[in-house]
């Protein structure tokens, strides 16, 4: 895979999409190269947003533009069917819910509460409601805010103190990152999805590869992808250290947004559209780093370690210690010990204890449809605890209307109320220590899904195929392989 450093970029006036969005929002630059950027939209959730609103109040400051701030409950809300208004998944978590509700009411921001028909994971909900739009700058104290770059927005994750700054001033100070382009070439084979592409990319370039870069995904593969797929792709940009990801908007983007609650309407939509159509990198624009990924021969991917970079084709064998550069050896040894795996072994056929479908990475309707197409008319292995948590109330309703919910339930999946669910563990119900879990989420960090839980990141299709087989299975072969 060619990776080039381009030196010519400073000689050409052509701009990347990222350059243009940056320029659009840059109020001023200071001598040390930090820019003051206008922030058009701020998203908050009960885990890291409440603390920002609370800190603001303690300092006697106010939210500058409440009409541009949207807050939801997603991180620690209960996923139990029939959950009540203050019910957290985490013991003691109700204080985050009530505090968020109080702070939101006091500050006048729009709150999408736990019992709101529009509630969902912030990065699923924001597009559904048209809060994210091409060309806007949008921040959230959540690292997966890069998902929203799929709409051609300047979207990035920040900390709570930075959120406090954005709330108080409608601006953020930021040094401009460099430009990276990832071009997807070729077609996708059946059973291979956006999740597989991005896992393959991270495995090849490494978890730190895009540090201080904004990544534009482009190429035929991106154009063919649905908005859902594009969001999955951009979602994982932070897993290779990118400042953010973005994709030039096109007709699919505009069609998706038309008629959404907070999207422009009527003449304003047309006015917006004429600007949105111009939002693309100039043909001659040069990137600081260029990566081309050929997806023609790509197999479904799965992680085997404790960093997303420790991933590979599902039919491959794990690395042998003798094949590794010395500096990687210790990390791989630790990872395999945590994961209960041996160097050189195959992953296919390894028994699984848990299966999870959901999260801001793969909790959208298209993800659920992909899994349902495999689960239809079958039963999962009785040894597997399987859970699906739709990304939002809208996704859940749609899945129920399409009969997908019924397929999941009949196959033996639990069907939960929308939220971040089992993607991370903050207490409460989860998988047992040592459990091997195939998961459509974004992070396989040690303990991420619970103390000692062994997470294998993969696509919803691979989760479904593995849940049926009771072992890690290839979604290209119905049902996968059975344990010997």
């Amino acid at each position, binding site marked *: 895979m060619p990776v080039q450093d381009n030196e010519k970029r400073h000689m050409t006036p052509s701009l990347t999409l990222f350059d243009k969005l940056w320029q659009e929002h840059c*109020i*001023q630059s200071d001598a*040390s*190269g*930090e820019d*003051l950027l*206008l922030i*058009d939209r701020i998203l908050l959730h009960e885990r*890291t947003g*409440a*603390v920002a609103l*609370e800190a603001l109040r303690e300092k006697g400051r106010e939210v500058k533009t*409440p*009409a*541009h701030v949207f807050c939801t409950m997603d991180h620690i809300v209960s996923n139990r069917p029939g959950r009540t208004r203050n019910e957290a998944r*985490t013991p*003691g978590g109700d*204080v*985050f819910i009530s*505090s968020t509700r109080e702070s939101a009411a006091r500050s006048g921001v729009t709150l999408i509460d736990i019992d709101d028909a529009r509630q969902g994971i912030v990065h699923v909900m924001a597009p559904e409601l048209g809060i994210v*739009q091409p*060309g*806007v700058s949008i921040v959230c104290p*959540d*690292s997966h805010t890069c998902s929203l770059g799929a709409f051609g927005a300047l979207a990035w*994750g*920040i*900390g*709570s*103190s*930075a959120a406090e*700054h954005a709330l*108080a*001033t*409608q*601006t953020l*100070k930021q040094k401009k990152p460099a430009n990276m382009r990832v071009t997807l070439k070729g077609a996708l084979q059946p059973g291979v999805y956006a999740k597989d592409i991005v896992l393959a990319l991270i495995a090849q370039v490494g*978890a*730190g590869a895009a540090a*201080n870069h904004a990544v534009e995904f482009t190429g035929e593969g991106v154009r063919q992808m649905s908005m859902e797929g594009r969001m999955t792709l951009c979602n994982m940009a932070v897993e290779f*250290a990118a*400042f953010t990801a973005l994709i030039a908007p096109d007709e699919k983007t505009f069609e998706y947004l038309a008629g959404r609650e*907070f999207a*422009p309407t009527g003449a*304003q939509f047309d*006015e*917006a559209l004429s600007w949105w159509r111009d939002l693309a990198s100039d043909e001659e624009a040069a990137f600081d780093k260029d990566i081309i990924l050929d997806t023609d021969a790509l197999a479904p991917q799965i992680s085997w370690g404790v*960093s997303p*970079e420790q991933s590979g084709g599902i039919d491959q064998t794990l690395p042998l210690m003798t094949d590794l550069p010395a500096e990687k050896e*210790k*990390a791989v040894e630790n990872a395999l010990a945590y994961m209960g795996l041996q160097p050189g072994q195959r992953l296919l056929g390894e028994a699984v204890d848990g299966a999870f479908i959901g999260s801001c990475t793969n909790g959208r309707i298209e993800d659920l449809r992909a899994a349902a197409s495999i689960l239809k008319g079958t039963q999962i292995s009785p040894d597997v605890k399987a859970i699906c948590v739709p990304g939002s109330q809208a996704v859940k309703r749609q899945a129920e209307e399409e009969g997908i919910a019924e397929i999941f339930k009949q196959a033996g999946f639990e069907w939960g109320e929308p939220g971040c669910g089992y993607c*991370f*563990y*903050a207490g409460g119900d989860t998988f047992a220590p040592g459990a091997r879990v195939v998961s459509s989420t974004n*992070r396989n*960090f*040690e*303990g*991420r899904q619970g*103390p000692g839980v062994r997470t294998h990141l993969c696509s919803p299709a691979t989760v479904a195929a593995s849940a049926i087989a009771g072992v890690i299975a290839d979604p290209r072969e119905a049902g996968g392989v059975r344990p010997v």
Partner: protein
Amino acid sequence: MKPFTTHRGIAAPLVRDNIDTDQIIPSREMKTVGKTGLSEGLFAGWRYLTPDARDLNPDFILNKPAFENASILIAGANFGCGSSREHAVWALAEYGIRAVIAESFGSIFRANAIRNGVLPVTLPRASIKRLATDIQDSAQPPQIEIDLNKCVLLMNGESEAVIMSFQLADAEREMLLNGYDPVDLTQKHSAKIEDFIRDHRIKRPWIYKDKI
């Protein structure tokens, strides 16, 4: 914000790449809506043998007697990657960590650190290896002195003194040295911000949802 000018202390080598914020503080340790009471949860998954009983893991670097007063961490590449949780920095600061030396940092973690008076020092891999090796080879870990005015780090090891310089953007350095509140700094430019918003409102009216 607590200013950072100079600091002298023991540095604990935890030289792994990709130490994520879930390791620095697992989500289950974020128990209140606030910035305090988090140091108990620092590195909980590694520091304790069991999640609940809190029995100390004697093999974990910060539990070793020589490093129990460590106030500097030495890590590998991409330290603080993953979740944006600022609780990772709040936990480090509350525990007493004033600086983290690493080959690179997760960008959100790094920004969070600067906003909370925790100094992120970026050094090349070879320099980090050198520091860590010298510390591990010493009977008593030597102290490291960091001077942010000069952007220099000094370690008087058993063999010879090591002096390394590092870089930080001027604005970041100023903020740390003076303990500025970034909101106060920005609000000095409020006239310019209002002018920009007025023009932007005319140019992209559909973005504006507030009434004026």
